[in-house]
């Protein structure tokens, strides 16, 4: 699959590392020059230095050929706009966004992002489940 990833911070970096062995064609766009250099020297991946919400840059990088478009920067607004551009302008089938503020999950889905992922809410849910589970255990004893 042709995969586009916006943002090469910790999440982006490890996402590339995890996806690479599966023979995907991956293109990464990152604003920070240092992050770009690190990614390019560590992993066999196409890295584009620039703003992943810039239409001209996305077009030059070939976003119109992407099957999946994943935005994982630390800024919710950038992730939303990148995915909206991918969807509306480049007709990418699947868009996935990282959500930093869990309240934005519903917002993202209403505004056209296919899948929004918040690590905060996943962890919070796990903790809630853990609390329920330990309450059950205590009751059983």
């Amino acid at each position: 699959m042709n995969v586009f990833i916006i943002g090469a911070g910790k999440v982006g970096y490890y996402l590339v590392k995890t996806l690479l062995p599966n023979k995907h064609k991956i293109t990464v766009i990152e604003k920070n020059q240092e992050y770009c250099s690190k990614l390019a020297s560590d992993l066999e991946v196409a890295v584009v230095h620039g703003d992943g919400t810039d239409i001209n840059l996305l077009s030059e990088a070939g976003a119109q050929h992407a099957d999946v478009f994943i935005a994982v920067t630390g800024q919710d607004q950038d992730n939303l706009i990148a995915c909206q551009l991918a969807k509306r302008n480049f007709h990418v089938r699947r868009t996935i966004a990282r959500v930093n503020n869990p309240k934005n999950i519903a917002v993202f889905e209403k505004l056209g992002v296919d899948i929004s992922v918040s690590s905060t809410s996943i962890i919070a849910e796990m903790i809630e489940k853990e609390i329920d589970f330990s309450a059950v255990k205590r009751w059983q004893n």
Partner: protein
Amino acid sequence: MHIIIAGCGKVGSGLASKLSREGYDVAVIDSDESAFEKLDDDFSGLRVVGVPIDQDILKKAGIDQADALAAVTPDDNMNIMVSQVAKDLCGIPRVVARIYNPAREDIFHQFGLETICPTNLTVETIAAFLTGKPFETTCTIGSNTISFTIEDVDPDLVGSQIIDIRRKDDRFIFGILKDGRFTFAHPYTVVEKGSKLVIAGKVD
């Protein structure tokens, strides 16, 4: 009328101060509390500290009762997101986003957002001044953009009535400017020497 201003920079603080002076109920949002120092001393509106894309912050600013919102933070994407939340999710009837990047403004304008691009406005104004080309202004009516320009009167046309003037393009004479005063171009108005024509046309 309750108006929310997202971003309290030079434009946001100016806008909030002006609207508050004119008697509107204003709430201004900025993530930096010291930004509110730019507001007028007698600003009577609400100051909300926080990120405007946070729904709790928007609620604090009164998004549930708001009639209008302007997104004027320095971050284009933030402005686009706030505007979409206000318009599509909260149903605010009047929403405008400032977008510096012309390409991005173009796209989101096409997607139905009311946008203003200071970059384009500045470029057009300065270019018109430098080249001596006449003033042009546009306004949006329905889904069309109407452009108004001002032309000097062709000496041959002095003394003719508007109804007799045939134009080579598909624009038409909307009004007449004489000594800085505007009058509508009625069919039998006579074009005088020294007046200018206000031309209107549909932009594709």
